[in-house]
């Protein structure tokens, strides 16, 4: 590799603050009990998901970010991807960006894999013709030849990820952002993905990955960074960073607790699908739950909180149902 390739990805003092909605601050309370809402304003809680993170990644580098769930690494990746605006600081990107963030969320279950793939390409700025030319390679890479015209609701979660990865991999990226999507595929496909990523890297593609697969981080990354409660606390050689991460993880059961809670909170559907389809993950998950009495308490608390709320407002709605 050339002695000093240019910086293509840079975060400069990136911070992201989320406002926590605490009792007394919801819009509903504001409307119905403005007095109470006004008093609660003073205790307005904020949460810094990402705090003053700075780093630079050079062209052709494989850069990984590790950290417990809830440490802010996925938020950081979303900011890098331009999906979320940093509260302060800025991000610099130099090159065509392809993101692989929990693919499958962009897929429509009632539509065939082929149409979803084309839609995915159109979404990131490809033309239909370009996408149709790429499709045979994508289908072959994903190993979905006989399923590509089936609606995606018939796909297993592994097939979702395979198609998602194949689409991103063939988009001819200059910078590839990868969230922990590869954890779902089977070992053989994972291997294939990492091989492909390595081949992309050979061609000079820059990769920024967020992962829990510490073995893979050690094996493939050139550099790694560790995040803890929104801050970048270590950056350097992957082996050392992963070592530090494991050490700190063992010390802090509180991290595990919030990690589990937030994971379920963030992606309940994905979690349920994973548990239903992967007996190994289900067993590991059950074991983690059993050994954590604190977690039981939190779940009970949540269940009690949610009961009166009854209906989920985020429910996807059917369009066009007028009642004049």
């Amino acid at each position, binding site marked *: 590799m050339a002695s000093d390739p240019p910086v293509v990805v840079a975060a400069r003092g990136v911070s992201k603050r*989320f406002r926590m909605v605490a009792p007394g601050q919801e*819009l509903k309370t504001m409307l119905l009990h403005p007095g109470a809402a006004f008093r609660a304003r003073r205790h307005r809680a904020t949460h810094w998901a990402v705090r003053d993170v700075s780093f630079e990644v050079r062209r052709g580098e494989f850069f990984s970010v590790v950290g417990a769930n809830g440490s802010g690494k996925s938020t950081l990746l*979303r900011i890098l*991807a*331009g*999906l*979320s*605006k940093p509260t302060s600081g*800025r*991000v*610099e*990107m*130099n090159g*065509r*960006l392809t*993101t692989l*963030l*929990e*693919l499958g*969320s*962009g897929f*429509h279950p*009632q*539509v065939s894999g082929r*149409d979803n793939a*084309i*839609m*995915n390409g*159109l*979404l*990131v*700025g*490809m*033309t*239909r013709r*370009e996408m149709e030319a790429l499709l045979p390679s994508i289908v072959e890479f994903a190993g979905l030849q006989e399923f590509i015209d089936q609606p995606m609701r018939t796909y297993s979660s592994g097939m979702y990820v395979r198609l998602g990865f194949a689409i991103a991999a063939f988009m001819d990226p200059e910078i590839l952002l990868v969230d922990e999507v590869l954890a779902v595929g089977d070992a053989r496909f994972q291997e294939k993905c990492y091989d492909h990523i390595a081949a992309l890297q050979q061609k000079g593609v820059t990769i920024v990955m967020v992962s829990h697969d510490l073995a893979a981080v050690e094996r493939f990354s050139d550099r790694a960074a560790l995040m803890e409660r929104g801050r970048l606390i270590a950056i350097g050689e992957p082996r050392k960073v992963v070592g530090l991460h494991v050490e700190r993880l063992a010390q802090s059961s509180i991290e595990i607790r919030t990690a589990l809670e937030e994971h379920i909170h963030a992606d309940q559907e994905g979690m349920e699908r994973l548990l239903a389809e992967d007996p190994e993950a289900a067993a590991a998950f059950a074991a983690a739950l059993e050994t954590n009495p604190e977690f039981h308490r939190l779940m009970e608390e949540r269940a009690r909180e949610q009961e009166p709320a009854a209906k989920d*407002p*985020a429910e*996807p*709605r059917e*369009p*066009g*149902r*007028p*009642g*004049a």
Partner: protein
Amino acid sequence: MALAPGLAPARGTRGRSTAELVAALTSRDLHLRYQGSIFGWAWSLVRPLALGLILSFALGKVLGTGITAEFLLAGLFPWFWFQSSVQAAAGTFVGNGGLLKKVRFPRAVLPISVVLGNTLQFLFSVPVLMGVLLLNGHEPSVAWLALPLVFAVQLLLTIGLAFFVASVTVFFRDLEHIVDVLLSLVFYATPIIYAADRVPDSYHWVTVVNPLAPLAEGWRDILLDGEWPTADLVYSVAITVAALVVGWFTFRRLEDSFADGI
């Protein structure tokens, strides 16, 4: 190069890709809506037709107002186009939350494709409406040339409202329900089941404030009476311009926080 969230990666073929994206989203929405149903898009005709018939019975025959089915239909078809567009637009960002959180694409394509899908449906139903009118002895008139004008004003008004409603609903979910209620009220505040000249003078302001009133009158003047739309349409144009400006700027102001707000 600083990253501008909300804009997709720059490519040479950007414009064509966005157009293709809108087309793909629109056709997918239409396809999914009638997937597996035997009568398909014909269902979009059933609602205005059935309502027109029953109202012409209830209002025309029972209450004896002399209102006819074709009078009602000429108002109901454009109304349902407006209503279903705005209603569907309200849920479009919230309903595509997964996409907004994970993929960077021009957000404006979502409300546009929703309105476009409903517009296509309306356009397909226009020949049916005209068929009904011809069967009832109305003759094509040169005033029909003004139909694109009324169509364009209503389309732009709908797009402006769609942008506003879709964007604000992300942060204020009640709006979706408020819109539902408002729409069913506006239906009665618009001269659809009555003619505007039957509105008592003291309530004349209702037909000025409501941009749909001159539009509804316009559709009927052209289709039933073969007359050019009246100058009242200027009110609709003014409010349409305002709706487009407010809708677009609200959208631009809020689009960066969609991914955080859902």
